[in-house]
């Protein structure tokens, strides 16, 4: 058959063939879509201790067969990902992106950028997209940062504040103190990382502007303290002393030092340090309890943020949140972030604080610092802190 004849013979059937081909392609795409959706679903189910690994490994293979057009769907799935699944997903995205970029296929900047700018997406996912885009366009993408000073992602916010601080420093170096002051103040208002706060506060101090660090961080400063209870051989950490079963602020306890009553301790440190050595003395082998109450107008999911180099346990409304039986390995602001569901009205916080037997100079500290914040590290407000006159408070 001549080619022309072949074409002529096919022509009447062409619409049918086209429809068939379209249907087949659509079927294949639907299958691919379904398998991608299933794969993402499997990865999202990854849990602790290797849970769901076999299914997730199969899912990763499906993801690795995708091209860059699938990135938006994969990234959107990160909104539902736990921290483990997030890492499975980002690794697959990097494999795809690296493979396609090696073929000179450009990243879909527009769709990735739209994802980045939509703050309703997971902060962690957006931070990752920011990293991805910054690698692709290290000059252009950071230009977005001045508009991201208040970003929900701590990483993006940190980068934005860094840029703002640099700009403020440049203004100061150019002798424009007024503009520099405004820029440092703007950076400070949005900064959540301690090093950036310290830098801004220092610069503002040099410019004659005072900062209320206690208010800025939102430290809990008002406490009742009782102790010392025995912690010889570090055994007191697991021992249940009376304040753990019932906080009775009028009670008197028999302790290793004799009799002990709750006493007031009000912190005055800019960085919120509550030094138990002050009321109890520089003791060793001892346990102290610290108690306070906070009032919130509405129930809120918050974080109790703690810095502490001593062994500790924290209870919120009588429920143990977490504890660390570690001594003198170091402390920093927001060292521990404890999810805390505050109820409307009065909430009780009890801290158990252990001091061990070490005698070195760097083991004298018996202290902690605590604040209550949202997930971005902004102090929860309105928040009233304090301990009423001696009462019996059931926790």
């Amino acid at each position, binding site marked *: 058959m001549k080619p022309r004849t072949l074409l002529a013979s096919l022509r009447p059937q062409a619409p049918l063939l086209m429809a068939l081909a379209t249907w087949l392609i659509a079927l294949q795409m639907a299958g691919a879509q379904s398998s991608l959706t299933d794969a993402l679903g499997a990865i999202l189910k*990854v849990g*602790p*201790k*290797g849970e769901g*690994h*076999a299914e*997730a*490994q199969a899912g*990763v293979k499906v993801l*690795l067969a995708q091209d860059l057009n699938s990135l938006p769907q994969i990234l959107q799935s990160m909104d539902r990902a736990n*921290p*483990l699944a*997030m*890492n*499975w997903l*980002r*690794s*697959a995205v*990097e*494999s795809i992106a*690296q493979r396609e970029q090696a073929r000179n296929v450009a990243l879909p900047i527009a769709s990735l950028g739209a994802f980045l700018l939509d703050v309703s997406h997971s902060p*962690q996912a957006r931070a*990752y997209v920011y*990293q991805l885009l910054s690698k692709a366009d290290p000059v252009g993408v950071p230009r977005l940062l001045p508009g991201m000073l208040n970003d929900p992602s*701590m*990483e993006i916010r*940190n980068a934005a504040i860094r840029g703002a601080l640099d700009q403020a420093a440049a203004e100061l170096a150019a002798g424009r103190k007024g503009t520099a002051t405004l820029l440092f103040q703007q950076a400070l208002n949005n900064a959540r*990382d301690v*090093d950036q706060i310290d830098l801004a506060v220092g610069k503002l101090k040099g410019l004659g502007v005072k900062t209320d660090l206690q208010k800025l961080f939102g430290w809990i400063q008002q406490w009742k303290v009782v102790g010392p209870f025995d912690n010889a051989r570090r055994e007191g950490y697991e021992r249940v002393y009376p304040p753990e079963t019932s906080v009775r602020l009028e009670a008197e306890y028999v302790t290793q030092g004799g009799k002990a009553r709750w006493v007031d301790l009000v912190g005055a440190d800019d960085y919120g340090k509550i030094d138990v050595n002050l009321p109890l003395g520089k003791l060793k082998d001892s346990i102290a309890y610290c108690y306070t109450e906070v009032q919130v107008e509405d129930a809120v999911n918050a974080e109790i943020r703690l810095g502490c*180099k001593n062994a500790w346990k924290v209870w919120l409304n009588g429920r143990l949140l*977490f*504890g*660390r*039986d*570690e*001594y003198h*390995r*170091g*402390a*920093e602001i927001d*060292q*521990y972030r404890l999810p805390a569901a505050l109820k409307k009205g009065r909430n009780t916080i009890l801290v158990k604080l252990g001091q061990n037997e070490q005698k070195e100079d760097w083991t004298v500290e018996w202290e902690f610092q605590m604040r209550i914040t949202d997930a971005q590290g902004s102090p929860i407000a309105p928040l009233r802190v304090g301990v009423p006159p001696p009462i019996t408070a059931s926790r």
Partner: protein
Amino acid sequence: MKKTFLLSALCSLLCPWATNAHWPQFRGPDFNGTDNAGELPAQLSASGGIAWQTALPGRGLSSPIILKDRVYVTCSSGPKQQTLHVLCLSATDGHKIWERTFQATGRTMCHEKTSVAAPSPATDGERVFALFSSNDLVCLDLDGNLVWFRGLSVDYPNASNSLGMSSSLATADGALIAQVENDTESFTAGIDVATGANLWKLDRPRMANWCSPTVLSLPGGKHLAALQSGKGITAVDPRTGRTAWDYKDGASTTASSALSGSVIYAPSHGLTALDFSGDGEPKQLWRAAQLRPGTASPVIAGGRILLMADGGVLTCGELETGKRLWQLRTKGPFSGTPVAAGNRLLAVNEKGLAQLVDLSKPEGEVISELDLNHTVLSTPSLAKEGIYIRGESRLWKLRR
């Protein structure tokens, strides 16, 4: 004693679990800071001696590992070192072949001198494993595709050290050995290399521990994982975690044991040589109080055992007897362990001064120096063609 020595040498040569990696983990194929690829160079030189150097995208003090023509290294970046990097570089020219990043799921706080990327990665020849101080554990294939990811702090929330964790990884018999030992939730796990699931998990002494596991080769192709802590050394079956023997006389929590054949040289009461070739408990061959490791682990080369003190005094002992042969003052301070081959030892101090020591001289002698002018707290790695020195945020390949 000599019989033990010959057996040791034979075991080293026929080491059946060795991968095709030249430097598969921290301190090399035999966990002793040396290899069998000939001498180190006679001279260190900035002009002709540096094959390449490259910046890393973050900080770290993990050692690189070398598999065929690729170098794998880890680092961490971000305001809280929360971004974890695993990089694969060309051994030929240092160009990046791939990079994967992860978000730390555990605490990243550590002492300012160390880093979240302190533990060294390991390979079994088919996969690359990377552990971070945040207890995030990554398994990638050699092309950088994820095999599995574990957040050991998600699994065991109280397993951490506020100063930082640093125990490196080792593999044996399809098990990845991860020592996650600390003051609180202290454990070591044997993890299936293919699936990432626990094969076993042992409660370990509740005390901070920064030293790394070693893998002991036994006749018949069997292995034991030697887990060192302040309490001593526990040797376990890598597949089951079952204890084979337990040396309970204490050991360092920083310097790790070194191996030579069927003898483990443990940082315990100075240095203690234990022959594990027999059944049951290991037999003590010698104990030398004068051979006292600092932060750096012992290095074995040419019948000698070498110990670098933090301040820079290098002590050389006779491997067979533990007799101290000589001491040499080098320029410290040191955090990383030296490497050695043949009659030469390379030590890089914290300021990045690389010092080459001729071990054949009667009292040892520094014969060449190279100032890298960069903080170096890590242990170099060796390959046939080069020496890899990892600085805080830079990697060099020196010609060998």
